[in-house]
């Protein structure tokens, strides 16, 4: 190890600072509790003390790890490990894909394919779809979108309203949900054409909140914060399902939709449009100098990403049977973005893994109740410290010379 500068004074200083910040945050966030049925707050100082100590120790450990160069011991083997795993599996890529598809199709028939497992798998697949859609916008086109949940909401409400008010079937509403979401995507795209990076992120964040607030206040159409209930479950050529068979059927629908999305995303990346998105991410000025119209390329990325979210939203409404604006908060956008970033920007395999991790981790930690979110956050920090470029950071060229399509 070269040049280790061990600075205990600095550790203590940093830990003290972090503890001070933790105290300021923890006092209102964890220090007070509003018990049910009691009109007053109860103060619970033990939680503040726990938070402050935990943060101070964490910061101390991080500072020590930095000075002793622990990141290098973790990051390098993790990177080469992932690379080794990737290259070890790449000859069997087709078989792995076929194998996992067969497994997913067979899941409801397998002994452990219980209600809970199916439900979780459905949830994972919804997030795979959303991740793949946001990946078009963020991973390929490089447009940081913090309000992606807005398109998910548009899709969900399209099906919810059309099904309950006009009695349209799911299969008619699905393309409509995609269409309306795409229009919303273009509507968002126009005002933000000139924005990049932080500024774009803030405007998209605002757009996401706007849609949610419109859903709350447009009472005549959306029934406000009471939401829309009794949204019918999709049928299949007149067949209706209930109970476990309903769950299985929904699982197959989302499985088909996720498969479609993954294939679509993989294909569109290697078309001229997909390449143009990536070029736009890399250098917009160079794009313009080559005669590419940044306006249409950006709008197409927003529209395509939004369409996929719209599909996912329609399915979500069909599965839940009830939607309200509370389902479409910023937290959802953040989780979808986390899936894209954690998976490794632009990587589809990464999205599948990341969606599984982010949906299943909170489930695994369910027994820890109050500590659940803390553990979830710690797990994410750990993953990002060891793999800052995301789980799968490999970029496969859209085509190679001589070999044509990859």
């Amino acid at each position, binding site marked *: 190890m070269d040049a280790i500068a061990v600075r205990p004074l600095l550790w203590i200083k940093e830990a003290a600072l972090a503890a001070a910040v933790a105290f300021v945050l923890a006092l209102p966030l964890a220090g007070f509790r509003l018990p049910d049925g009691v009109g007053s707050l109860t103060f619970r100082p033990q939680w503040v003390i726990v938070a402050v100590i935990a943060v101070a120790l964490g910061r101390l450990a991080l500072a020590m790890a930095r000075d002793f160069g622990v990141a290098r011991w973790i990051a390098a083997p993790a990177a080469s490990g992932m690379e080794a795993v990737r290259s070890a599996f790449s000859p069997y890529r087709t078989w792995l894909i076929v194998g996992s598809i067969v497994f997913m199709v067979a899941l409801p028939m397998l002994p452990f394919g219980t209600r809970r497992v199916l439900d979780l798998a459905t949830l994972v697949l919804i997030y795979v779809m959303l991740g793949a859609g946001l990946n078009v916008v963020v991973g390929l086109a490089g447009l940081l979108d913090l309000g992606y949940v807005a398109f998910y909401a548009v899709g969900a409400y399209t099906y919810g309203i059309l099904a309950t008010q006009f009695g349209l079937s799911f299969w008619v509403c699905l393309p409509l949900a995609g269409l309306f979401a795409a229009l919303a995507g273009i509507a968002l795209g126009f005002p933000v054409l000139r924005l990049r990076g932080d500024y774009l992120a803030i405007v998209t964040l605002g757009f996401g909140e706007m849609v949610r607030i419109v859903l709350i206040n447009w009472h005549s159409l959306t029934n406000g914060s009471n939401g829309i209930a009794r949204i019918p479950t999709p049928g299949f050529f007149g067949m209706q399902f209930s109970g476990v068979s309903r769950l299985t059927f929904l699982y197959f629908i989302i499985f088909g939709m996720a498969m479609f999305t993954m294939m679509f995303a993989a294909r569109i990346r290697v*078309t001229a449009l997909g390449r143009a998105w*990536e070029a736009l991410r890399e250098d917009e000025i160079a794009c313009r100098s080559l*005669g590419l119209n940044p306006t249409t390329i950006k709008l197409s990325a927003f529209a395509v990403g939004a369409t996929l979210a719209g599909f996912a939203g329609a399915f979500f409404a069909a599965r839940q049977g009830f939607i309200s604006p509370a389902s479409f908060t910023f937290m959802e956008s953040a989780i979808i973005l986390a899936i894209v970033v954690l998976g490794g920007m632009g990587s589809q395999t990464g999205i599948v893994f990341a969606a599984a991790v982010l949906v299943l981790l909170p489930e695994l930690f369910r027994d820890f109740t109050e500590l659940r979110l803390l553990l979830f956050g710690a797990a994410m920090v750990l993953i990002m410290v060891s793999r800052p470029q995301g789980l799968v950071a490999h970029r496969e060229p859209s085509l190679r010379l001589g070999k044509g399509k990859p």
Partner: protein
Amino acid sequence: MTGTSLLAVDGLTMRFGGLQAVDRVSFEVACGEIAALIGPNGAGKTTVFNCVTGFYRPTAGQIELTRDGRALAIERLAGHLIARAGIARTFQNIRLFPHMTALENLLIARHNALTGTSVIAGIAHAVSGLFGLPLTRRAEADATEIARLWLARVGLVDDADRPAGTLPYGAQRRLEIARAMCTEPVLLCVDEPAAGLNAGETRELAQLLRNIRDHYGASVLLIEHHMAMVMDLSDHVVVLDHGHVIADGSAEAVRHDPKVIRAYLGEEEGVALPQGSGLHGESA
């Protein structure tokens, strides 16, 4: 076609707030020639360049591109339409797409040729590309063929599948020129292409620019500080100083022009600039 006017800049003026960067600059670039734009630092060369390639909208003046007997008012076109009109450029600080391969970089330059320029055509191409229809495949194969040709011309075929950002500096310069040429321009604008290149690479670059003029059907507008290369290569040199054109003529005439010598070297008059790299150091 050689000799007829391709680009005519007339009374070009560019003001940034109170700063007059370029003042009533007029010059022409003829078909089939290499024209150089030189001048001390801050003379306004890159500003003129950015106006011609649509990155700035000039405060006043006209820029006219004559193509197939039709005159186009460049100063009124949006940035990306100028490239479609036939003016391609490279950048002083290379602007490749660093994470995309060399081949992909060139294919981006074929984007409009591939997908057409209307939205409908673009959607049709994307949909047909999704299904891998024969029409799109053939178009992609053609585009790849043109890209391969240009990779061969700049000696980068073996690096086709490498991310552009990992190529050596000189190769990145050549790749950027190849990328600009893949848009099939009538005028190639290169901004200080020899900056940071060694003597051998500079010679190769000069030969490439000559080939572009003689064989690949584009005129060249060049900004360069490497005087030996400028004098050797240019059919026609325009000298800018403090935003004004102070000389315009053959390399030989400009070299002996007292105003040019004064602009570069200060007051000492009557000294002809030496052949070769005379101005190189002073101008940098």
